[in-house]
């Protein structure tokens, strides 16, 4: 193993740990009523965000969805600015305008999270078209859920991406549920990857709780998209450990299912892999875990101590460059 590969594995471990700890903290803050609104946790799905983002280059774009904290952090987003946004503070990523469902750092190529299920794929196409027309080799990673694949917009987007041969990697986070509805009850096919066939698009299904498998699939897919071969779809089989939103008691989950999936928890699994193959020592990993814990704590403190935005700032950012919409009220 080269030093570069080792570094990348350590980055994956650190980033998955960061997402896990941040999500756990966020859920705790939410239950303590310190976070307003509602939020969707990606706890358990860390390997998908991290495996995919590890395969992206700096100019690439990312389209997120309503369960987007992990995407942001995996793309290099800052934990403190994320926490501040979730608490509705001025220092947050979106100045308090967006919150959990709209969290994004556009400077990292993230073209928004989304509160409307299935609205991401058409936007990903636009970015892919733009990358192509501007003559760059940038690609787009577009995350979507199993449930989102039932929206018309998803199907329109896949077809168009193929017809225009756009550099988009569609990444399905198949976490087995669309809200309370299990996959078999909402989807006419067994694998989301099967849907790509209707658009003559290559697709694969991977173990979404194995960060290296996701990464490998995304490296291949990114290469496919970047080399002008058009769009491709990766279905990652994963599981959310919490309910649909934080506070959802998850009563629709059958007995034993959680325990079953917990045996495949992506983080202990990757940790064991790193240790068994002498890629990292126990001390090294524990040090990372402790550093991340400190970072997450500091991020929470930063968020808590940040002020709320000035109420009048609600009037800003409605339009670009002109203000009439604001005074004309």
């Amino acid at each position, binding site marked *: 193993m080269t030093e570069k590969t080792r570094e990348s594995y350590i980055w994956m471990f650190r980033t998955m740990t960061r997402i896990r700890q941040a999500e756990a903290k966020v859920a705790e803050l939410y239950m303590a009523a310190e976070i*307003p609104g509602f939020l969707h946790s990606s706890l358990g799905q860390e390997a998908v965000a991290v495996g995919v983002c590890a395969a992206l280059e700096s100019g690439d774009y990312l389209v997120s969805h309503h369960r987007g904290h992990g995407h942001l952090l995996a793309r290099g987003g800052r934990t403190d600015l994320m926490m501040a946004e979730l608490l509705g503070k001025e220092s947050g990523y979106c100045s308090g305008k*967006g919150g959990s469902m709209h969290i994004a750092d556009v400077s990292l190529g993230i073209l928004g999270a989304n509160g409307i299920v299935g609205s991401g794929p058409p936007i990903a196409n636009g970015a892919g078209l733009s990358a192509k027309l501007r003559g760059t080799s940038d690609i787009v990673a577009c995350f979507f859920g199993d449930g989102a694949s*039932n929206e018309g917009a998803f199907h329109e987007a896949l077809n168009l991406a193929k017809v225009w041969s756009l550099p988009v990697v569609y990444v399905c986070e198949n976490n087995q549920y669309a809200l309370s509805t299990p996959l078999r009850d909402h989807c006419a096919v067994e694998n989301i990857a099967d849907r790509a066939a209707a658009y003559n698009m290559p697709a694969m299904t991977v173990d979404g709780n194995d960060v290296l498998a996701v990464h490998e699939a995304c490296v291949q897919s990114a290469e496919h998209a970047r080399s002008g071969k058009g769009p491709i779809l990766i279905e990652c089989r994963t599981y959310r450990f919490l309910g649909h939103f934080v506070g959802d008691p998850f009563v629709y989950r059958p007995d034993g299912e959680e325990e079953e999936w917990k045996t495949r928890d992506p983080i202990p699994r990757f940790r064991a892999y790193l240790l068994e193959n002498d890629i990292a020592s126990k001390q090294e990993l524990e040090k990372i875990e402790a550093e991340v814990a400190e970072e997450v704590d500091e991020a929470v403190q930063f968020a808590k101590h940040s002020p709320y935005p000035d109420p009048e700032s609600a009037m800003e950012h409605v339009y670009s460059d002109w203000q009439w919409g604001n005074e004309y009220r």
Partner: protein
Amino acid sequence: MRTITYREAVREALAEEMRRDSSVFLLGEDIGKKFGGTNKVTVGLCEEFGDERVRNTPISESAIVGAAVGGAMTGLRPVAEIGFIDFVGVCMDQIMNQAAKLRYMTGGQTKMPLVIRTPGGAGRSSAAQHAQSLETLFCHIPGLLVIQPSSPRDVKGLLKAAIRDSNPVVFIEHKMLYNTKGEVPEEEYTVPIGSADVKREGADITVVATQRQVYAALEAADVLGEEGISVEVVDPRTLVPLDTETILASVRKTGRVLLVHESVERCGIGAEIAALVAEQAFDYLDYPVRRLGARNTPVPFSPPLEDFVIPNAERIADTVRSMFQTAVYKDA
């Protein structure tokens, strides 16, 4: 009289109409067993009526409303749930071009007895894609009825009337009202579509307010009453058809009118009512018509921002007070 929540009142209306008429059925995302819909309105209905009549759907709003349209044209009375009104962006074609117009375009050959139930409104930091008040969009589409009840009693009576009506109805609930309690008769009743309700009588000014703003207006009226301003609060309850008589009668009596709603002020229902008053009660006015809608922005996430954008009792009271100072035009 017994007291139940707005949520329970909606659920009772659905259950009673389903018992009464076997052509009534429900469809929507996660409305069935084990979840009971995003707002828990349909909890228990699947157990009573089975999953043929309480149909869980995939996340496919166009397919949901389209199925309601086709069902309505062929003998059923579908009641579709759209989890948040914001999602109508996904299925607007089925609502705007299909449900609203098929009767007209076929020269009256068909009827469209369907209801789309959907919650709107802000107040819970749900941000710009889960907190909109889009009622006026639908008011602008001939063929649709638009209903926006505020009290548990009204929501039950109007939903029953909507289900029995043979027109497509956009039935807008308010997400912040589901836990609100109020008196609801146990015996059978409906509330006629197109009838406003005077929620509080007063002599000096009319406040026409919709849905959650009715409560804000009543709160403001209490405060203003102590200051010697007697406020009449009128709740239109249905926007299309609008009970113009009740509104005009109130304005003719008080000589002042403030129009309050949670949709953005620009082109809101307040603008329509202002025009109505200008056309039909101008001579009775002692002060220019005033509007108080949400500020013309998307709904922001952070609580202080959201509070700034959405009208509340304090802003209603302030606006009313300003209407008892010397009459000044806004730009003067």
